[in-house]
């Protein structure tokens, strides 16, 4: 469909930027609510499923190098079942995009400008995403590349600057409540990392597919590292109880930074999450329209962008009444929902394709 190619590093950067930033914003409070001060152990537990996710997606992409997730699920499962599974994936992308859209708007709305209607932020973000997508994946990858390089120093700087507020005593005692909260937290993290499946829509355009496996696993490890800082940082700065009560603990830590006379660096947070949310929303938005176009054999997805953007805006408005509803969903339903679609189904796809191959060969 598209004659464009992106490099594997660009693909890696897309995955890192899109998963990290909304993860920091929306998932860290959820993880902390589950695992409390032992969240960092949950992260270590999550390494195994995370690597598994990266491995499965990369393996599938290498097995069907010119096909996207939507296309190879039809190749593997046959036309009709494949189409149904593809629609499930598309719904997942759609839901994920609208969730982070809503999450970003809620963050902005409750943390910075409380009286501005949510719709403004939704529309602004969607304008950016639509503009980027209409210029195709290459542009998205390139923009994201710069943004990520811009974001990482800010993140590192933030973790250094909050260092003086950190009290590592807050991490003790370790594993007071046993393993079950930690496992629950790890499950949550796994569900977050499952959104790596969106890369299955991007991998067909990666120029060098030989290193995909290595890059995917590397991506997952980078993600683990990127979450270690904020997860432990939030707990060490605020202590377990206060951290559990905060809506946006990571933003709160940024807010408390003081450099001399500069007291509240909110704008850094705004910059960080605007850039990151843009990356995530644009990437998932791209996956939706590309998948739709592939499902219905359209020549070009451009025609789908604006209607899909409108649907996304509406869906993210009605998806929940308020932020608490979103958090409740993320805590109790999302882990099962996301892991089923983005980890179990691809795993099944891989197994079936392996089985078919064995039967044939």
């Amino acid at each position, binding site marked *: 469909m598209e004659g464009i190619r992106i490099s594997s590093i660009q693909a890696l950067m897309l995955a890192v930027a899109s998963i990290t930033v909304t993860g920091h914003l929306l998932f860290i409070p959820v993880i902390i609510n589950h695992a409390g001060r032992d969240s960092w152990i949950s992260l270590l537990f999550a390494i195994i499923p995370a690597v598994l996710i990266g491995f499965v997606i990369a393996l599938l992409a290498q097995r069907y190098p010119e096909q996207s997730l939507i296309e190879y699920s039809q190749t593997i499962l046959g036309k009709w079942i494949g189409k149904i599974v593809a629609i499930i994936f598309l719904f997942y992308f759609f839901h994920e995009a609208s969730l982070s859209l809503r999450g970003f708007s809620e963050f902005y709305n409750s943390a910075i400008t409380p009286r501005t209607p949510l719709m403004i932020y939704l529309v602004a973000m969607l304008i950016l995403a639509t*503009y980027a997508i209409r210029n195709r994946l290459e542009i998205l990858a*390139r923009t994201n590349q710069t943004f990520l390089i811009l974001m990482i120093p800010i993140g590192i700087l933030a973790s250094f600057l909050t260092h003086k507020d950190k009290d590592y005593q807050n991490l003790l005692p370790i594993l007071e409540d046993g393993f079950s909260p930690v496992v629950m937290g790890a499950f949550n993290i796994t569900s977050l990392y499952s959104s790596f499946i969106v890369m299955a829509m991007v991998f067909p355009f990666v120029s060098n597919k030989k290193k995909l496996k290595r890059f995917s696993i590397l991506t997952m490890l980078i993600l683990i590292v990127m979450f270690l800082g904020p997860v432990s940082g939030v707990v060490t700065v605020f202590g377990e109880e206060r951290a559990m009560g905060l809506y946006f603990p990571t933003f709160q830590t940024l807010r408390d930074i003081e450099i001399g006379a500069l*007291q509240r660096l909110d704008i850094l947070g705004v910059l960080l999450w605007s850039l990151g949310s843009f990356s995530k929303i644009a990437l998932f938005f791209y996956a939706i329209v590309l998948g739709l176009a592939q499902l219905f054999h359209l020549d070009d997805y451009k025609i789908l962008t604006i209607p899909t953007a409108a649907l996304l805006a509406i869906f993210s408005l009605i998806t929940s009444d308020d932020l608490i509803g979103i958090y409740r969903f993320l805590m109790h339903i999302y882990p099962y929902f996301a892991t089923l679609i983005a980890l179990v189904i691809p795993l099944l796809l891989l197994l079936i394709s392996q089985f078919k191959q064995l039967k044939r060969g």
Partner: protein
Amino acid sequence: MFRRKPKLNKKQNRKIEDLRFQGNLNDDIKIIKELFGDSSDLVVRFIDNEKESSVAVLYLDSLIERESIEEYVISELNENYKQDQNLRELHFATIKKEATSSIKDSLTYLLQGYSLVLRENQTSGIALDTAGGERRQVSESEVETVVRGPRESFNESLQTNIGLVRRRLHTHKLKVHEMKIGELSQTPVAILGIDGVVKPEMYEEVKSRLEKIEIDGILDSLYLEEIIEDPNGYTPFPTIFNSERPDRIAAGLLEGRIAILLEGSPGTLLVPATIGLFLTSNEDYYQRYDFASFLKMLRGFAFFLSVVLPGFYVALLTYHQEMIPTPLLIALTGQREGVPFAIAIEVLFMEITFEILREAGLRLPKTIGAAVSIVGGLVLGQAAVEAGLVGQATVIAVSLTAICSFTTPSYNLAISARLLRFALITLSAVLGAFGLIFGLIFMYIHLTTLRSFGVPYLTPIVPFHKDNWGDLLIRTPWWAMRERPNEVAGENKDRMSDSRDNNHLNRRQKK
């Protein structure tokens, strides 16, 4: 009844293309005279008297150099031709001499300042290069000034300009392709590129884009710039570089870019252009590298400020007062106590005033320009604050922005910053910091989509080329600038020989 009837112009129906010299001197002259109408500067000089003469010289008085006509054409005819009317060959000592039999070609020659010699019983004329006329001297550039480095700048003559470039690049590989553009103006345009350094397909692309131009006249390089630039949709950013300094153009040619020069304008185009080109001053290459790097970074920062600062100021004071240190905030609010307007209105008011002042300063004669700056600086700046129209901080923010925008080396890019500033002020006034960031992200995506003759505008930032960063925000010393920019240059990327043979590099590495 009201339908317009197509006009039939009989004169135009007689096709000039088909007209040829018939060998009858008086008839031929009559045709040419008719074609020029009553133009008083068409001179027909018969050597004897009009009735008997069998030879005549035609020229356009406004385009020729009188001395060369007198010396080389008329005296030749007077001396040699009068003695022997049947002389077969006439020897004119002009630089160029062309035979022409079609009237259309002869017209073209006449219009370029050639003089045309017609003889009785001959069906072809001789066109002799006697072009001249007043030209501005090659002088120092007033727009792009330097402290150190060459000072010459282009003038309005194409041949002089090509010469200025050739005098810097003494190589036969410098290819010059000339063509004429403009149905009526017939402006000579030259495409320059160094063979083996430019991408051949890009050279062809430039050629074909220029050949496709259909327009009545070209008066400045901007005409070409807007017609041939990539179809990027609307963009406030310039995607073709222009300069009037031959050293800058020669440097561009050495990097594998292609220059487009034209008769009648000193502004010379350089394609493909990337963002780094616009943020670089030619002096960066003529000052020591450490200082040049400092200046480059300073300029990049100033450019960023000139776009962002007013919007940031508006966002900060309208929505994010908590980010300002408290003592400063108290001082700022104290100054603005009597000011009735919102910050955004204040800033817009000052910005527009500044733009008006700047425009007034440009259009006025230089002697009155000083008066404008006094009125602008003293009366508006000081009095507006005292009258309680604007706060002092606003004046500082706006003037800082203005000064920053003066540091941008390329006027083309500076004016796009001027436009974008207003968009960012508006966005910040409506949405605060998010508006500003929204604007910047949008701008960045837009920049990523831009291409100049197929080359991504933001290279080497994206697509990433680490070798070329040495010439973006810093300037590496000359002995380390070993490669031509990726994406721009053709196959041959080495500016210097292999690093093993590079004496200057080796001498440093051994230590």
